[in-house]
């Protein structure tokens, strides 16, 4: 890419496509059929649906007038396979290959929507046709996932049509590196990987650090078991991550980036690889980007199944091809990262926020969210909730809105019991705190954490002692073994909880767990150990009665634990 003009020309050539997908009727296109190609819908066989639709398109001679696109994850995984038809924006769910003929011959050709495939809100008599009128979508605000329902993730032209790479062009041709850092700082963006560290500060430290070359790295390890936001970004809009990283490269003076993706995500790796290659072909990665003299390229590194590798120092060691064991900080990666050089490491979702901030300005971003947590957050809703899937909401949205209004509440008229955030480092939040606005500080105050965005909803079929045991089992399994508080301490905690769930709990076990928890939190080497006791502490805090019931009465109300009489 030589200039902003050249980029603008590509965008111009895509105007017609863009318009259709924004809902404007077009003389050239009858319909763009956007079929969700996220993991959920692929597992629900959306590819067969695509084949059937293609067949019907051919049969009716509509090849020139319709376009069928496999997008990234649209969000409502439980309703899959889902699709949106533009320009009218009709949303169809649970589509089967046999529905293809009706979709083409009734809807596309005659303009009559196929009523049986429309979404019906719980309790509503009439279905809702347009995607933008459905509560689940309407209540969301999309910055990170700004493109996922509109583009083919494999098409760089689609990305460019929605202002893709315009922020990179603006940064390298019109801004000084310091100005880019200042803009990100001013936006108030905080890391989405869990800890919430201010992103602009991290960039500033790295830019100022001694040592060269410098590196940019992306944390796509997504270790929280029960979370799949980063996957949906990498699969649905890989260019948004590439662009964010390139902007940072310019801002801190780095020419090489690494994306670390877990091996369990083959589709994310494939799409990202394709996107990187395409960006190189377009000169958006490589040498002399936008004729500015700025060079930048990205390599993919694959994680091989170790939770601790999500921790920053472990991840950076793993990039070097070694055992991913964490090391004490300081020095922080900003001073000593990959190959001992200054490195910015940010989470996938953090990266996807960067381009919109540069393009629309820090003030725009800072106007969204709460005082100390700006912008939006993507959550993966799972467990005992109706609308499982991916949602993006402004910071400060309450848990109740997320679980009940967007998430559609608890299936089978069951009672909400708790929502777990932050995975093995987080905690369980009970019903009495459902009106808490979601931001870094208020979740922390409840003994949970924002975490990377996994939200697992539990009802009365879940035993909280068993859940605490589940997370301890996970941590014992994943502890790298380097420091003894984590290696031995979590194992002792596990043994105590295991005893309790078998009906062999003793008086004083709860206190013993708390004591161990505090010691481990204070003495473990890395974040894994320091946060490992959180699920136990938070369940004791809010569900102490369940522990006592197990210990004293040998009873498990949820009937999960098999206790000895």
């Amino acid at each position, binding site marked *: 890419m030589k200039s902003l003009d050249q980029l603008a020309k590509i965008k111009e050539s895509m105007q017609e496509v863009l318009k259709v997908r924004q809902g404007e009727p077009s003389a050239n296109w009858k319909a763009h059929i956007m079929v969700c190609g996220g993991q959920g819908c692929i597992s629900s066989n959306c590819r067969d649906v695509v084949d059937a639709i293609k067949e019907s398109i051919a049969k009716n001679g509509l090849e020139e007038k319709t376009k069928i696109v496999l997008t990234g994850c649209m969000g409502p995984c439980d309703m899959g396979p889902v699709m949106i038809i533009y320009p009218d924006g009709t949303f169809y769910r649970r589509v089967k290959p046999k529905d293809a003929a009706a979709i083409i011959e009734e809807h596309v050709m005659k303009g009559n929507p196929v009523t049986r495939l429309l979404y019906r809100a719980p309790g509503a008599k009439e279905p809702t046709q347009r995607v933008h009128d459905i509560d689940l979508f309407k209540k969301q605000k999309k910055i990170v996932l700004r493109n996922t329902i509109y583009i083919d993730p494999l098409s760089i032209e689609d990305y460019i049509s929605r202002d893709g790479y315009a922020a990179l062009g603006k940064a390298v041709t019109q801004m000084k590196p310091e100005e880019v850092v200042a803009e990100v700082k001013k936006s108030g963006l905080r890391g989405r990987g869990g800890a919430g560290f201010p992103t602009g500060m991290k960039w500033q430290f790295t830019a100022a650090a001694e040592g060269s070359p410098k590196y940019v790295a992306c944390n796509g390890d997504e270790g929280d*078991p029960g979370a799949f936001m980063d996957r949906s970004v990498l699969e649905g809009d890989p260019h948004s991550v590439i662009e964010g990283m390139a902007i940072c490269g310019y801002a801190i003076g780095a020419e090489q980036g690494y994306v670390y993706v877990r091996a369990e995500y*083959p589709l994310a790796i494939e799409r990202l690889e394709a996107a990187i290659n395409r960006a190189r072909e377009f000169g958006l990665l490589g040498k002399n980007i936008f004729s500015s003299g700025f060079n930048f390229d990205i390599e993919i590194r694959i994680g*091989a199944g*170790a939770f601790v590798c999500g921790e920053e120092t472990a991840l950076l060691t793993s990039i070097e*091809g*070694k055992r991913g064991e964490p090391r004490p900080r300081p020095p922080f990666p900003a001073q000593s990262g990959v190959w001992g050089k200054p490195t910015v490491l940010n989470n996938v979702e953090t990266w996807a926020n960067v381009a919109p901030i540069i393009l629309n300005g820090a003030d725009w971003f800072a106007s969204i969210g709460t005082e100390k947590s700006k912008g939006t957050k993507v959550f993966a809703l799972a467990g005992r909730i109706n609308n*499982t899937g991916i949602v993006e909401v402004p910071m400060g949205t309450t848990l109740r809105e997320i679980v009940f209004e967007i998430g559609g509440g608890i299936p089978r008229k069951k009672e909400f019991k708790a929502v777990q955030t932050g*995975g093995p480092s987080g905690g369980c939040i009970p019903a009495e705190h459902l009106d808490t606005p979601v931001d870094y500080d208020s979740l922390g105050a409840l003994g949970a954490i924002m975490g990377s965005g996994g939200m697992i909803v539990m009802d009365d079929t879940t035993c909280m002692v068993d859940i605490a045991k589940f997370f301890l089992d996970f941590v014992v399994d994943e502890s790298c073994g380097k420091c003894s508080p984590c290696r031995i301490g979590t194992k002792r905690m596990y043994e105590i909880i295991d005893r309790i769930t078998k009906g062999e709990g003793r008086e004083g076990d709860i206190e013993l767990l708390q004591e161990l928890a505090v010691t481990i939190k204070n003495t473990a080497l890395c974040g894994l150990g320091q946060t490992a006791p959180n699920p136990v502490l938070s369940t004791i805090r809010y569900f102490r009665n369940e522990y006592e019931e197990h210990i004293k009465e040998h009873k498990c109300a949820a009937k999960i634990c098999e206790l000895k009489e």
Partner: protein
Amino acid sequence: MVACECKCEEPGKDELSKQLELIIDEYRGKSSGLIQVLTKAQELIGYLPKWALISIAKGLGVSLQEVYGVVTFYAFFSLIPRGRHKISVCAGTACYVKGTNMVIKTIREALGIKPGQTTPDSRYTLEIVRCIGACGLAPAMIIDGKDVHGRLEAEQIPEILEQYA
């Protein structure tokens, strides 16, 4: 992790060994490529036999001990041969809340193996993984690292397994 004790020669080892050298070529002398090479080698051979680890150590210029250290650190690598089909049952939080235990129990009953084991006819290996990113379809499992089966119910599981010969 246990190493294969048998002295049997791998069938087609010469051919595999040649292909392995091609994989190594891309990273020759570069220790940073270790995880990439191991991943590709396992893809090629199905597991990581000792001879392959020796070639990789030589090719990348790292000690065999270091290679072994990396292989045993990451759950993804296996030192023993596995079945033709790898059944990975998700034990992430979402799946656990929705019935991982049921899935494992059903598979154990159908195949007579515990997680970590391979059926005597080498058809299936059963393992537990932590979240495959299909939490929206919990409980889920993934077969051969690519086919995700979600919203599992006990009755359908034997039928799904049957599809993998």
